[in-house]
């Protein structure tokens, strides 16, 4: 087929770089930073994928995408075919191509990646999905004839959107209930536009609507209606995809001073409420001159890079471990560095100091050193006695990870959770302790990734389908 190019030749082809907005320009806007492959670059990159490879990448992908299949389609210049091939496994390739940690998944195990750079699988995924979207040739997935059964999906993040799509395809009447005024979950309130443009998400939501999925915003399940109310209203099953949205703080003195935000609040004000456009958009965000971001995960990178676009004098990321342990994607840390974000590793705040108006003006830090590896295998940090010092800061953004929102747990009798409030669900089915109630995404893992949330939602959707089929057959029998 593509035998014209030998594997030896393929291995000579260099990794195709992805054009990006220059750092000087991009700190002045919220437009996307990586600009995507043009056709020629995508085709050349696709030719780096070896023929007859055992494709360990497929196992590296949490949802098992047939990666060589879609890449070969790109090599054949069947870009639409590539997108459709991707969608057999992954409903949201335009999103995953942009935000998946490929370096830890498919690209990590790529065969040519052992000798040089891996195939740009994420970049190719994004290319194919964008090509399909921009060409206007997106297919609305076919839906099976109506089963007459209704399913409530709670939350509209990646888990909810995927679950809704899978279930709609099986012929169920699906209603999504979303607490916020806009669907998308972390994709719209957390991840900034310069990493994931909003029209990519809106496009996916339009498709869902075309499939007959109803989306009811401003509905907090547990408050507006409970899970039990949903059953009473005639829903036959419920899929919970409410995410892990509860921000952690450090519980150190001065944490409630003005100017100290959780990353969630800061990002929500800017991404969802558009505080960057204030006063045209009416929600403000306070950003001083010296911004400290605490933590070094993806959320911290998003918070620091969003800060950089609001023009403070300085943005510094403080992390209690060293550069090697930072959980963020390396490419995001590089992007942050290019945008002028500084990093102070092995440094942890111990208290915040306020001015007369209760605004934070300084932060006392302590230097850290790494001790023995802890349960997670990472070396655990410990403070160096007497190493305390004061940093002048006037804005602090806490990006320390997330817990689980208590609302559903408090209002759903019989729904079992662990000590942290994470819903206990069978990993093979997403089934919870309540009959007919399934769960997927961060609500069962306590903070993971978009692709994992989607993978679990697909599993849960299948299990719901089987559950309703078996229920129907026992009723008729």
């Amino acid at each position: 087929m593509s035998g014209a190019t030998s594997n030896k030749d393929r291995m000579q082809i260099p990794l195709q770089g992805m054009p990006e907005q220059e750092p000087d320009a991009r700190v002045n806007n919220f437009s996307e930073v990586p600009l995507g492959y043009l056709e020629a670059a995508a085709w050349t990159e696709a030719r780096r994928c070896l023929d007859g490879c055992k494709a360990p990448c497929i196992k590296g992908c949490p949802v098992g995408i047939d990666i060589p299949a879609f890449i070969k389609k790109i090599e054949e210049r069947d870009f639409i075919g590539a997108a459709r091939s991707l969608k057999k496994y992954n409903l949201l390739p335009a999103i995953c191509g942009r935000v998946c940690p490929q370096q830890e998944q498919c690209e990590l195990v790529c065969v040519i990646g052992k000798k040089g750079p891996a195939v740009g699988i994420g970049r190719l995924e994004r290319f194919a999905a964008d090509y399909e979207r921009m060409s206007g040739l997106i297919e609305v997935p076919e839906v099976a004839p109506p089963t007459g059964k209704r399913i409530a999906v709670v939350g509209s993040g990646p888990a909810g959107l995927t679950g809704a799509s899978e279930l709609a395809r099986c012929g169920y009447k699906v209603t999504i209930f979303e607490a916020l005024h806009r669907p998308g979950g972390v994709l719209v309130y957390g991840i900034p536009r310069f990493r994931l443009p909003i029209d990519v998400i809106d496009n996916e939501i339009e498709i869902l609507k075309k499939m007959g999925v109803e989306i009811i915003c401003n509905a907090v399940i547990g408050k507006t209606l409970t899970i039990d109310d949903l059953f009473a209203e005639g829903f036959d099953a419920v899929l919970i995809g409410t995410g892990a949205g509860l921000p952690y703080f450090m519980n150190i003195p001065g944490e409630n001073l003005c100017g100290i935000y959780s990353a969630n609040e800061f990002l929500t004000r800017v991404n969802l409420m558009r505080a960057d456009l204030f006063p045209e958009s009416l929600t403000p965000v306070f950003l001083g001159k010296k911004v400290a971001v605490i933590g070094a995960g993806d959320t911290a990178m998003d918070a620091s890079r969003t800060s950089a676009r609001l023009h403070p004098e300085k943005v510094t990321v403080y992390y209690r471990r060293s550069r090697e342990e930072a959980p963020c994607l390396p490419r995001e840390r590089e992007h942050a560095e290019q945008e002028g974000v500084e990093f102070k590793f092995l440094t942890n705040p111990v208290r915040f100091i306020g001015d007369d108006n209760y605004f934070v003006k300084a932060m006392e830090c302590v230097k850290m050193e790494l001790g023995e590896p802890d349960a997670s295998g990472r070396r655990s940090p410990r403070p160096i006695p007497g190493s305390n010092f004061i940093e002048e800061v006037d804005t602090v953004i806490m990006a320390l990870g997330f817990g689980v929102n208590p609302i559903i747990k408090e209002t759903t009798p019989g729904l079992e959770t662990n000590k942290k409030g994470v819903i206990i669900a069978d990993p093979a089915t997403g089934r919870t302790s309540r009959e007919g109630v399934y769960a997927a995404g961060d609500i069962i893992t306590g903070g993971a990734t978009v692709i994992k949330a989607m993978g679990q939602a697909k599993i849960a959707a299948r299990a719901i389908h089987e559950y309703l089929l078996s229920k129907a057959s026992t009723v008729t029998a």
Partner: protein
Amino acid sequence: MSYPIVEKKELAPNTVMMQIHAPLLTKKIRPGQFIIVRVTPNGERIPLSISGWDGDKGTVRIIVQAVGRTSTELVRLNRGDSIEDVVGPLGQPSHTGQYGTCVLIGGGYGTGAIIPIAGDLKALGNKVIAIIGARTKELVLMEDELRAVCHRVEVSTNDGSAGVKGLVTDVLAEILKQEPVHMVTAIGPVPMMKAVSEMTRPLQIRTYVSLNAIMVDGTGMCGSCRVGVGGTTKFACIDGPDFDGHQVNFDELVYRQKMYIPYEKKAMELCACK
């Protein structure tokens, strides 16, 4: 989505009552809960107490005082206009139970907020006394409606134009002298809630206050609404809004409420609604 205003009444200058059609919302409301509204597509999300609801008509009632850009835009809307977003009911319901004698204190919009609580407490067999505080007579809100759900209603005005001349705490002090009180709930401006809590503290009377912290989502996702209670941090939107008044760090709340003043001024200056 859009939520039509089906009734509007001016209660006092810059203060209106509105009934909003939001049928999904009205199914589970309990006294003491609130909603969050976004008036326009570029609007801010602001919390408002629920002062009544009608499950059959699918309406929820709010009392709004125009204090800044969003609340002014809201009170300028008329019957037939729509609000962009309304979500709720949010927060924990108020503490209701069988206490004995309860004194409910409302200042400003808080007078509307105590009506459903008073109704519940009375139905549970408590003796319910309400105190309405206002600067002057024309700002005394909802007095008749409150009388219908309370055993006794007292009014205080700063200038003495209605009821007792003075503050709600002056009236409260009188009541405390007259009879034993088992529970106090105060909803309104922070200085009022603080003064009430200080007055009941030495008497060890259970006292609840409804904290009007600045909110964004109202579902526990952001932490904007964090308040200091008994030395720990709580989220007013999911742990409250009602808290033990003797445990609340009111000074912190006041500072945090002022966090965006320069922005609020700017937003108001640019408002066509002035």
